[in-house]
């Protein structure tokens, strides 16, 4: 099925993001998690990934935006940490490559139009009208932005992670 694109609601998104963030952090702080919140709708999440083939750790920066949240999932994009933007093809090396992960894939330029973290837990998945099983459609009753982070993490785990995309 093709699930409908969630409706943007900046006010609801800001409130729900703040609420869920407080629940996730409990008594902790953003710094405890290594996260940054540059504004009321955005969360920056550094992700360190073990690159076993190269014997190193690779850094990525994930930007979540909550303007369709909580009825829709957060927008999720890997960005260039130097420019805080994503521009194809210059920034493809800031997008991780994964192969054969069961339910997530990272496209640096899906259909020649957008970076797509191909998971039913990201807004872009609905924006491109991706096919989805009914049981996987974003459900705010049992999903939150941690669901998005957990799904993305699966694609970054061994044996799926294959390093950076090459420009």
């Amino acid at each position, binding site marked *: 099925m093709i699930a409908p694109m969630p409706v943007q609601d900046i006010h609801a998104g800001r409130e729900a993001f703040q609420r*869920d963030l407080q*629940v*996730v952090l409990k008594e902790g702080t953003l710094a405890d998690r290594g996260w940054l919140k540059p504004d009321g709708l955005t969360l920056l999440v550094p992700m360190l990934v*073990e690159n076993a083939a190269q014997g190193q750790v690779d850094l990525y920066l994930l930007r979540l935006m909550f303007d369709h949240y909580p009825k829709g999932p957060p927008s999720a994009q890997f960005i260039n940490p130097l420019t805080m933007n994503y521009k194809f093809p210059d920034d493809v090396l800031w997008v991780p490559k*994964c*192969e*054969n*992960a*069961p*339910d*997530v*894939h990272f496209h640096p330029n899906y259909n020649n139009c957008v970076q797509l973290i*191909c*998971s*039913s*837990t990201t807004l872009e*998945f609905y924006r491109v009208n*991706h096919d*989805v*099983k009914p*049981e*996987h459609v974003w459900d705010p009753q*049992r*999903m*939150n932005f*941690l*669901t998005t982070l*957990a*799904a*993305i*993490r*699966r*694609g*970054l*785990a*061994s044996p799926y992670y294959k390093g950076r995309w090459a420009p």
Partner: protein
Amino acid sequence: MSDSVLEKKPHDGGSEHDDDRHGPKLTFEHVASVQDVKFRVSWNETLQAAWNTAYEKLGEDSRADDRLQTDDGVDMMPLLGKTMRQLFDDKHTKSRKFQIVGPTGGAQS
């Protein structure tokens, strides 16, 4: 990190010595409800048994389509029958934090 810094490093009440004697302290995070629990299990306990205990402590019902992964994304479903000793000694995972996640969809490469 220097020894002097390490000595001052805060800890959660457990220690490597306690781990050796009594088993590892695990954290289970239930992503849907954003709750987590920490508890110690014996080295002979299986991951499945620890997961079952986590549901009880969380007060959450297990769902048939729930899955278990580490906080760095490693799928633990093929390893549920392993004991803690096997999991950590055989280096199936370094993480002691697990996430209980529901089903999500996406595309394979």
